[in-house]
């Protein structure tokens, strides 16, 4: 059983999805429900500070989320990444599609730029 929780906060035109626990292939329902709750936000900021575990199934899920966001004309940004998870996004070259920021303030500034 995958232990994933995602909370959503709206700040202006951006939605912050705060991820807690795991991101695996089994996290699809939790992540996509949060994305749906984000509604018509122009930018989606993924906050990974509460992330404890991610396998390759989780990375696939981020790609699916990226496709949905692009289809809706939304930008996808990330913050709260440890060095370990930054390296994973670099390894998989997902960092070429998801802008990574050092903190939430920087992510929100970029989201509204």
């Amino acid at each position: 059983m995958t232990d994933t929780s995602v909370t959503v906060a709206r700040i202006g035109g951006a939605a912050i999805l705060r991820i807690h626990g795991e991101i695996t292939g089994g996290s699809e329902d939790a992540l996509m429900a949060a994305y749906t709750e984000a509604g018509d936000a122009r930018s989606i900021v993924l906050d990974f500070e509460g992330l404890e575990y991610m396998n390759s199934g989780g990375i696939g899920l981020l790609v699916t989320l990226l496709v949905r966001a692009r289809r809706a004309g939304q930008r996808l940004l990330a913050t709260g990444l440890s060095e370990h998870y930054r390296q994973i996004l670099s390894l998989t070259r997902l960092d070429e599609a998801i802008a990574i920021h050092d903190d939430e303030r920087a992510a929100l500034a970029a989201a509204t730029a």
Partner: protein
Amino acid sequence: MTTPELRTPRDEESWAQPVDRLSTTATGAGRDTVTGRRVAGPVQGFGQMWQKTFAIRVPADEHPPEAVVAHWKQGFPTFWPGGARFYAPLSGIAPGEVALLEVSPVPGSPVKMSTGVMVIYADRESFTFMTPEGHALSAWITFSAWRDGDETVAQAQALERTADPLIELSYLFGANRANDRFWEQTLANLARSLGVADPIVEVRKVCVDRRRQWRYAGNVRHSAAVNMAVGTVTAPVRWFRRRRSA
């Protein structure tokens, strides 16, 4: 609050480190077209994005998930259909290792296309390959097993785009189906190796993104298939030149 850096994630040992350019310890392949290339996943591909899933079921009591994955890693090349060869790195299927592949684009043809894959993730229940520049696909493919009731499900799931417009065109004219058959046969061979006499391979295909990424049309310059075709066409010229200089 604990900062992200102070917690050691339990997946830390399962992921490869990022690399700028690939290198391999695999031997036996005719050509190494992977060294010096970068990895390229579904974000960097050209064609429509597909999620393809191929799965078999075996009795869990006889074949628990971790044992199935260990068996799959150990015998990985042996489950491939004829005409394709997998040259494992010296350390086997482990994070960061790079394997070489030889694939016949046309089944039964002596013409081989050389490429490879990088192991970006491996744990006791799954392992994931990522393709390099030059591979026909820009993809991740994950091999995994888990318990479902009294059965173990063993699955290969790919998230893929064709790498360039030429491959995308070939996919419209049969190469996509040939690729599916390859993995159906691979999973069937795996099932037989686990004692299943008449394996049933469950297949599910979902188009995740119908749009093609034209900004990656230039991937064709890396294409192992194009290089193979050019090499095949120019082979007589090279042979003639060698004879003249002999």
